[in-house]
């Protein structure tokens, strides 16, 4: 006990960034606990992944050679088996879409308290985790009075571990019969192709739920017209079918890096910010002074888009 077990995330042959962030978070927690950091890599080309995860701060990389791709029965089963073998105090899993698909099952199976989507962690005789609530308007501290425990970790909150080192790499035997799994991956599909690629745009005018009605989009389209910008949006606009999927900025849409990103009536949920924080200059228009979008903005207007946008159109008309 007092070790940390962190499970890496990868997809279609690529280690995802959050895996190396998890190493940073896991090392810090292991230091607090006075234990070792174990990293598990399950499925895919585990040897290549293990090499890349052999980073400073990692004591052991456990490899589970199985299927080519993610399968949640494999991930849940292998993680639980490794947990029993390593018997750590903390299990860390990325709060990625695949993390959502197996971490809660592991926690349930092993009877571990689960703290989801942590943005900060420390240990002081017990786990102290920081999480957000109410659409990122507030932060909370939660304390866990039981050990061992499981935590899912938000991407982009810890710096990625970079420095190569010589971790010990240990294959871990786990028998898995994919055909017996009740959930079988049939393939993958890329979505969101289409006429424009918002990822190429220099100036994005991006609209969110603050626009209220489909008819009101005309207002934003006018602005796009007079400024020569490209139109993008947050998720609800696409969910409602008002704009095609290729316009969606965010975690499950596109990552964009324009010179200017003008966010109109967008709250700045973490999954949205994941897609636009790389913009050179971010400008936000929102009625709510506490909207989290202002945290990433360079310029802000606390105001009603139905007043500000027409005035802006006038400026360029």
């Amino acid at each position: 006990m007092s070790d940390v077990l962190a499970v890496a995330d990868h997809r279609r042959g690529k280690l995802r960034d959050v895996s190396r962030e998890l190493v940073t978070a896991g090392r810090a927690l292991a230091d607090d606990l006075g234990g070792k950091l174990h990293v598990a890599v399950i499925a895919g080309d585990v040897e290549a992944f293990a090499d890349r995860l052999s980073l400073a701060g990692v004591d052991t990389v456990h490899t589970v050679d199985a299927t080519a791709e993610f399968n949640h029965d494999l991930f849940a089963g292998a993680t639980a088996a490794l947990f029993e073998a390593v018997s750590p105090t903390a299990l860390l899993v990325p709060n990625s879409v695949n993390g959502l698909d197996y971490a809660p099952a592991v926690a349930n199976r092993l009877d571990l308290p689960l703290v989801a989507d942590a943005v900060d962690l420390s240990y002081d005789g017990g786990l102290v985790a920081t999480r957000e609530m109410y659409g990122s308007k507030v932060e909370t501290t939660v304390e866990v009075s039981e050990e061992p425990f499981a935590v899912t970790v938000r991407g982009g909150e810890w710096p990625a571990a970079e420095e190569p080192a010589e971790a010990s790499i240990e294959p871990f035997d786990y028998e898995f019969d994919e055909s017996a799994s009740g959930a079988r991956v049939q393939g993958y599909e890329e979505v969101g192709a289409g006429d424009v690629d918002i990822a190429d745009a220099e100036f994005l005018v991006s609209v969110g739920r603050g626009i209220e009605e489909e008819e009101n989009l005309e207002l934003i389209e006018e602005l796009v017209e007079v400024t020569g910008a490209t139109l993008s949006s947050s998720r609800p606009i696409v969910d409602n079918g008002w704009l095609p999927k290729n316009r969606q900025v965010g975690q499950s849409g596109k990552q964009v890096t324009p010179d200017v990103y003008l966010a109109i009536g967008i709250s700045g949920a973490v999954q949205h910010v994941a897609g636009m924080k790389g913009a050179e200059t971010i400008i936000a228009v929102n009625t709510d002074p506490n909207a989290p979008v202002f945290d990433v903005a360079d310029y802000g207007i606390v105001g009603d888009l139905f007043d500000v946008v027409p005035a802006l159109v006038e400026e360029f008309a």
Partner: protein
Amino acid sequence: MKILVTVKEVAEAADDFEIEGTDIGERFLDYDLNEWDDYAVEAGVQLSEAYDDVEVVSATIGPERSEETIRMALAKGVDRAVRVWDDEIESAEPDVAAKTRLFAAVVAEEEPDLVLTGVQAADDGFGATGVSLADEIGFDWAAVVNSLDTDDDLSTAHVHRELEGGVEELTDVDLPAVLTIQTGVNEPRYASLRGIRQAQSKEIAEYGLDDLGLDADAVASPIARTEMYEPETESDATYFDGSADEQAAQLADVLRTEGVVSE
């Protein structure tokens, strides 16, 4: 066939709010049906319209106040509802594991073939209840489902799981299963006047721990919220003040300086 849809009443904070203790003051909170659950309800109701003999039952862990939200789900076509609550549950502030035990007891009672939950609750967003429940009750599952199709004999669900970066995973899941539903999977309907009227006479069964054959241990949670605060803003944003016209003029200047619009 029976479909169980979990329906949470979530709180949304007003633009200006105050924190009292470890939560936002009650008077700054507005309650509504969780956005993700609205899509889950629609998915259940659409299945009941597409197949004969499908009953859709909603399940909520929540105080009496949440009946307003439950009525909304009933008005949208849910056939009847279960609400789980009592003083012990209230004081325990159930975590994912506790909610899993409560919903597992409801599942034992109702014996559904399919359970639909939302991906996450908008207020405290754990994104964990559905998959945890699936593991507990021995159902197969899929998380973050943004497309759902079923075989004619309802033995298998063909789903898309929405991964990051515009990639979807195509997965077949055997029923009985738990699916966590992502927004955009369908177009949730508005409750019709007729639906709202009918909802008044639909049943909302109430269960406490005793009724579910559980004791206080089942909801005891080792996770406690000890603090809530407004995050220190990392913002060094420059704010444009004045009237809308003045704000727009300053914004236009920035756009010109950045060189993204000519003139």
